[in-house]
């Protein structure tokens, strides 16, 4: 039976998650150079368009239609049979389409995260094709394995409350493959480009934090205690991680930065994602504090060392943060928080930790290989990178024939 409170909560949560992609657009857009601002915004918004359609046409069916195999099958193509009555296997108190549209927003933001890796040099046409294929052959299957009825990782007992493996690890490792495949931006050494508009980065951070309440607390699919728990630990982890990143900078570079705090906040939100429905508030503090340590190291020590150009740190924040979150779930999960969940290592169940590790490895392996193959194919046919001349002039003018800001008037 449809419950109005639960439905209201899932609908507004869907709205909040939808808002995260514009939030991400500004978070990323503020980091690039003026001349590439619109290309980032465009990539985010076109993903919203293309994947909203892919999802209702076949993506939702591939991901969530019951099925034991690689995919969920084609039973729900074009939302046939996906109506306004609840579908109990997913959510018993809201219309089935409410669950569908809520999940659509996850399918949208995941590939958008990868933008951080090919920013400022990817051909728009290649980006478009990549996104569509990646969503279909990487996101949809993994989503089915972890969340779909009959999904084998689900049956394995892997816990992923709101998308640590499905969203952040898959996109994060995809980002690393991207960075390695597409190569470094031109004359990066003579000058590391500074973010052209940090206030936009901060605006994006604020919208992401706000939207993430829908992302995590909405994943309870009801306005109940579980949702409240997810909401509380989400806020706590974000806060803990934001502070911890700032302190790390303070000690290492002499000053804390806004950009650092923003990065930490996002890392904290990433890390708590898989755990939000299984852990309580004190562990959330630890999860947040530590994720900044890991991501900070990845971003400002490991990356420069290896020299791959993960331009906006999609790998450094989302993959590293996602892995830590998935494993932390295996450490801190407790049935006291969520009886439907499981106990983690620290609550006497080491097995859960291993299962989490396994799910992480499988996601890493599959997503990286699949992503690589997709790039290879696209590169073969149309090439993924813009010509150097265009890169120097900027993607806004060369890919979109427009300028973000007027200079004279």
């Amino acid at each position, binding site marked *: 039976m449809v419950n109005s409170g639960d439905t209201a909560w899932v609908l507004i949560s869907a709205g909040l998650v939808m808002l995260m992609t514009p939030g991400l657009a500004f978070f990323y857009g503020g980091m690039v150079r003026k001349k590439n601002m619109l290309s980032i915004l465009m990539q985010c918004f076109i993903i919203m368009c293309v994947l909203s359609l892919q999802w209702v046409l076949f993506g939702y069916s591939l991901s969530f239609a019951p099925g034991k195999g690689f995919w969920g099958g084609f039973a729900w193509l074009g939302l046939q049979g996906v109506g306004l009555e609840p579908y109990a296997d997913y959510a018993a108190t809201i219309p089935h389409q409410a669950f569908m549209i809520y999940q659509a927003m996850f399918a949208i933001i995941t590939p958008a995260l990868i933008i951080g890796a090919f920013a400022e040099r990817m051909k728009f046409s290649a980006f478009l094709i990549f996104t569509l294929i990646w969503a279909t052959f990487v996101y949809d299957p993994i989503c089915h394995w972890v969340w779909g009825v009959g999904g084998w990782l689900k049956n394995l007992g892997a816990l992923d409350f709101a998308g640590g493996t499905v969203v952040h690890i898959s996109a994060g490792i995809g980002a690393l493959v991207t960075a390695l495949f597409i190569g470094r931006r031109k004359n990066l050494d003579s000058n590391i480009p*500074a973010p052209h508009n940090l206030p936009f980065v901060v605006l994006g951070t604020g919208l992401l934090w706000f939207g993430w309440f829908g992302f995590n607390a909405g994943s309870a699919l009801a306005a109940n205690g579980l949702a409240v728990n997810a909401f509380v630990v989400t806020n706590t982890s974000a806060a803990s991680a934001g502070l911890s990143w700032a302190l790390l900078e303070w000690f290492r570079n002499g000053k804390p930065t806004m950009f650092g705090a923003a990065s930490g906040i996002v890392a904290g939100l990433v890390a708590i994602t898989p755990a939000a429905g299984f852990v309580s508030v004190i562990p959330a503090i630890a999860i947040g504090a530590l994720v900044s340590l890991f991501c*900070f190291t990845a971003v400002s020590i490991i990356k420069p060392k290896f020299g791959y150009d993960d331009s906006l740190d999609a790998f450094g924040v989302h993959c590293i943060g996602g892995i830590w979150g998935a494993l932390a779930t295996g450490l801190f999960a407790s049935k006291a928080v969520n009886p439907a969940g499981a106990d983690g290592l620290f609550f006497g169940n080491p097995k859960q930790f291993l299962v989490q590790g396994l799910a992480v490895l499988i996601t890493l392996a599959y997503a990286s290989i699949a992503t690589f193959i997709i790039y290879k194919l696209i590169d073969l046919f149309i090439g993924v990178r813009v010509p150097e001349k265009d890169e120097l002039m900027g993607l806004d003018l060369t890919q979109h024939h427009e300028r973000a800001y007027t200079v004279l008037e």
Partner: protein
Amino acid sequence: MKLIIAIIQPDKLEEVKEELYKKEVNLITVSEVLGHGRQKGVTEIYRGAKESGNLLRKIRLEIAVNENFVEPTIKAIINGAKTGETGDGKIFVLDLKECIRIRTEERGSLAIG
């Protein structure tokens, strides 16, 4: 006629303007520039990546004056902009061959003021 170009600290603009007005130099053109000189900049750090912030914000003044106004103008700029700290800036004086007031098409000295 001379064209005087001055590079000063951003927060000195108001004082320089006041000094100039005192000397009845009322017509000036101002723009924002970045300067590299003796004055040390602050290193900027973005996600660990350091940038030697060696370009500092400065204000550039462009003032066309008649000969008899050259020294007063220089004095005025110094009075307004001098702190004695590195970074105070410079004044450059160039020969001005011709000056035209677009509105009236007047030329030379009377077009200056």
